[in-house]
């Protein structure tokens, strides 16, 4: 195999995010933002239809 030798990253992948304490909280924020967008867009559709 000629690909570059694997150099394991020394950083722990479980490092906490700089805000919201855990990654699960960050992902929850992303999902809440998606749901909020869909609800707002649906309201937009109904209002201007």
């Amino acid at each position, binding site marked *: 195999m*000629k690909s*570059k030798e694997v150099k*394991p*990253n020394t950083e722990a992948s479980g490092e906490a995010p700089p805000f919201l304490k855990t990654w699960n909280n960050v992902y929850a924020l992303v999902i809440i933002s998606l749901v909020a*967008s869909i609800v707002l867009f649906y309201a*937009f559709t109904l209002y201007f239809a």
Partner: protein
Amino acid sequence: MTNLDWTLLTFTLLFIIVYGVYKNHKDKNIDGYLLGNQSLPWYHVGLSVMATQASAITFLSTTGQGFDDGMRFVQFYFGLPLAMIVLCVTFIPIFHRLKVYTAYEYLEKRFDGKVRVFTAFLFLIQRGLSTGISIYAPSIILSTIFGWDIFWTNILMGGMVLTYTVVGGTKAISYTHLQQMIVITVAMVLAGVIVVMMLPENIGLVKALKIAGKANHTNVVSFDFNPKDRYNLWSGLIGGFFLQLSYFGTDQSQVGRYLTGESITQSRLGLVMNGLLKIPMQFLILLVGVLVFVFYQYNASPVFFNKVETDKLRTSQYAPEFAAIEKQYNEVSEKRKQLLISSDNLDNQQLEVYKSSLHASDSVAKSLKGQVVNLIKKNNPSASTNDRDFVFLRFVLDHLPHGLIGLLIAVIFAASMGSIASAYNSLAATSVVDVYRKFSKNTPSEKAELNASKVSTIIWGLFCIFVAQYANQLGNMIEVVNVLGSLFYGIILGVFLVAFYFKNIGGTATFWAAVISQAIILGIGIPQVILKKEWIAYLWFNPIGCFLVIGIAWAWQKKIGIRA
């Protein structure tokens, strides 16, 4: 364009190029050229990821989509935030831990060389073709501004970005993405505000959107499930999720962006930023397109938005016929405008009459436009008959104040340069790391690999310019790029998901599953593209392709793999 526009255009572009090259001038190794030495903070990663996806196509074609088809295209992006979460949890830690240059390197570590090369090959075909279309987009601008033939503007644009990429490399691209995204956001917001200000006095944003609503242009979300319907909540959430997961997880043009993050955390935050901002950004761009639609309800609109082609008609033997059609079209537009002005305070019965009158005038306008398209085809058989991608550019050049024209053109150029440069870079990275390095008899030196990267960038650049010469035959750019991606992305994603989650499935089963699935998807997709009929909306190709790979690989492993 006035001197002010030219000054702003030149200054903005020069700043972006010089700054990018300056920030990157010390990178003399392949790590720096391809991965930016993995040193970028999260906001650079996030902006870089967003800017890579935001090409000139985004501004020209998405606004054209809003103008023509309304806001429903935004549903295409509903699966993106969910895809970002999966990438953060699964893909980023693996790619970072293995310190790979390309996503396909991982496949050799997990399976074998043939799976890696086949997947890289699918990526190279897909990305090479898509980048050709991306070059065509800014070429349209040059062609429209100068009246030059699109053949030469394709060469000029593709060549300019090629030089920039070979000199600068990934870090230059990433650093200038920050500036590009700032200018893009400011310019698009300004464009939206100015369109509203240019509407008649009694029409503000809300009323403008109500007018757009009467023409079904404000239908953002549709809950109806219909596999033939391109954009609804379900195709966006499910099909879009698989498309975005594959695009961001396995397309080297994006993997290469977030691998430039200095740590797993920085890369993850960059993708989270994309997950939070992408949908509002696309909504804003489509909204500008819808507002341009409303603007043209009150102002004379060209019968065909591609000025280069209509100018050719004016000097051809078809000039009298064209003039007659144009006159009729202007009369229909005026009638439409009067209808619109008289549409205030209608009761339900009057509203129905209004809608049917509007529908009738739309049909006449459409028929007249069809006649112009026929004339254009007669005059120049190789001419593009799709003018949707020219709507926003024509609006900018004809109606926006000087200064802003130069800034907007600069923004669109900058976005193109960023996304095309990223694509060139990813094509080079995959060619060198997954092909050149793999098939070299001896392990190449760092210098040889860096040189090979630059040569490969040039070869791919030339290929993309060649493809750009045929892009005008394919239709609306943003849809063509996504249709093209959907033909390949599901398969590539399926291979990666087998690699991550099905540890008992080996390389041979996965390889043949990918080959068979790709043949099936192309067997369904290519006739749809050629015949221009859709039995299955293109977004569904992504989950179908992905599950085909997983299912066939699983069955192959179970029935044949064990005996082997």
